[in-house]
């Protein structure tokens, strides 16, 4: 027994179809290899070009204002060439947090329902509308938000919130419809497919034996989910959430159309605000000179840096969760 298991263990794992490194002596093969390498490098070139272009456009204004004061200044006065990013950063964060607060519970509930509680047939039927939700262009969501969601918020939801939760600073002031809340709700709808589909992917990798063990010990289905499935999938769901957050931060058109476009900072969710992508979308084409263009590009640079960090973190978490910790380093 002993030697047999040893030879099994000594065999190189997997990849039986792997061919020895080919010797490329003829010209066409070398040319083909070089062409492929160039095309592969295209992805890296795209990344470098993005960073370079953003930096080149925004370097002027960052030197003019200073990076720190650019970020913490809350004045945005194009006429006097005063540029501060704070209202846009604030609006982006507030709308994204609102979106997560609404979307996360719904997405997790939906993904649990589809993976743990329903038959495979329901799963395939439902996965189609979820992918539809992801496929609707954001300008269409904006259109719907502007003419359907905003009136509903103005006439029903915001007065109701003011009446019941009006003692909180978030729900005070006149119900305008256009504002942080509208943008947050639209974003919640838009990131729902992202969080849901990745959560489903993560939940599918939870070993069946964990569920079976919990059920065999007499747990109800919900207890099995709470005690066996969710703890195992926690990191992956966190990763899905961060990916959703990254999408919410960068979403442009729908937010631009419903946030109210006012470079101010208000505690109330009913108030109009502004977000980083929205101000870029509105002002870039008609920017009045290099400083203004540069300031907008600098807002883009901030947005790029934040989404980049979030994406790296999220991808690492999701990989860890679906491939096991050993793969995370690669």
């Amino acid at each position: 027994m002993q030697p047999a298991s040893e030879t099994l263990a000594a065999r190189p794992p997997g990849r039986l179809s792997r061919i020895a490194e080919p010797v490329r002596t003829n010209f066409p093969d070398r040319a083909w290899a070089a062409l492929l390498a160039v095309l592969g490098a295209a992805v890296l070139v795209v990344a470098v070009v993005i960073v370079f272009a953003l930096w080149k456009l925004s370097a002027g204004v960052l030197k003019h204002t200073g990076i720190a004061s650019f970020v913490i200044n809350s004045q945005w006065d194009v006429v006097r060439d005063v540029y501060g990013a704070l209202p846009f950063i604030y609006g982006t964060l507030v709308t994204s947090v609102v979106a997560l607060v609404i979307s996360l519970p719904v997405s997790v509930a939906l993904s649990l329902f589809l993976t743990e509680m329903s038959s495979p047939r329901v799963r395939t039927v439902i996965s189609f509308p979820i992918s539809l939700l992801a496929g609707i262009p954001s300008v269409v969501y904006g259109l719907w938000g502007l003419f359907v969601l905003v009136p509903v918020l103005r006439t029903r939801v915001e007065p109701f919130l003011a009446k019941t939760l009006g003692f909180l600073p978030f729900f005070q002031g006149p119900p305008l419809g256009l504002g942080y809340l509208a943008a947050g709700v639209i974003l919640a709808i838009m990131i729902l497919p992202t969080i849901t589909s990745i959560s489903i992917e993560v939940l599918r990798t939870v070993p069946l034996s964990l569920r079976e063990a919990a059920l065999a010990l007499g747990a109800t289905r919900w207890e099995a989910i709470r005690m066996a499935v969710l703890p195992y999938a926690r990191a992956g769901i966190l990763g899905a959430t961060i990916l959703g957050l990254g999408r919410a931060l960068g979403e442009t058109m729908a937010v631009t159309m419903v946030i109210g476009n006012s470079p101010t900072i208000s505690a109330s969710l009913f108030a109009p605000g502004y977000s980083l992508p929205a101000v870029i979308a509105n002002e870039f084409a008609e920017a009045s000179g290099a400083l203004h263009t540069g300031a907008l590009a600098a807002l883009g640079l901030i947005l790029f840096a934040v989404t980049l960090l979030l994406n790296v973190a999220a991808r690492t978490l999701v990989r860890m969760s679906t491939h096991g910790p050993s793969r995370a380093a690669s």
Partner: protein
Amino acid sequence: MQRRRAVNALMTGLCALGLALALVPLVSVLWLVLSRGISALDLDFFTALPSPVGEPGGGVGNAIAGTFYIVGIACAIGVPLGVGAGVYLAERGSGRVGDVIRFTAEVLSGVPSIIVGIVAYGLVVLPMQRFSALAGGVALAVLMVPTLARSTEELVRLVPGVLREASLALGVPEWRTSLRVILRTALGGIMTAVLLAVARAAGETAPLLFTSLNNQYWNWRADQPTASITVQIYNYAVSPYENWHDKAWAAALVLLLLVGVLSLAARLLTRQRFGAQR
């Protein structure tokens, strides 16, 4: 036990509620686009130029054509790069470099599309001193490359290794094996991936706002501003005019049909491919 059963039933109900909540906006969006869009839709809408405020009739023919034009430019640039990068990752990307490229592609696919618009502005609009269809195409191409690279890699990896071995054993050079055996086998899947990428690109608005801008007339020159259906929807929607709002809904319906047909075609292609294998 009774209490635990009740909790179980309650949580099951809440999870099902999540499903219902997710479907409400979807149904609402689709229903409104269909019902409000269809009333302003006629043949003219697909072929005519936009009419001025207050004048009845007119259409978005130039914007539909412009979307096809810009997406066409994006495909010409983005498809070879994206598919090529995917083939590289599948065939030679097992080392450290491959991992770096793969991770970069994953991370790049999360970059907001408006950022890509700024990049295309810096790369194309500034040097050319004018907004152009080319700039819009470059922006969309940059968006296509990472997603295409990743899906192409997956599809090429699906091709059985024995096919390659058989081809090489017959003395076919490596480059011809890659092109004529591996790529041809994966072609159906790659077409699907390209169609999905095109559908996504056609729905993009943000990267076009300050690259291809807009145009009231037909345009077939790559160095001129060009209308697109998405930017047109945006302009109509945020205008103060009632009859332009109607046109925004109609244009949204056209856009959804376009995106829907592309995705459906992609789905059918996939089904056909898998059907043939089984």
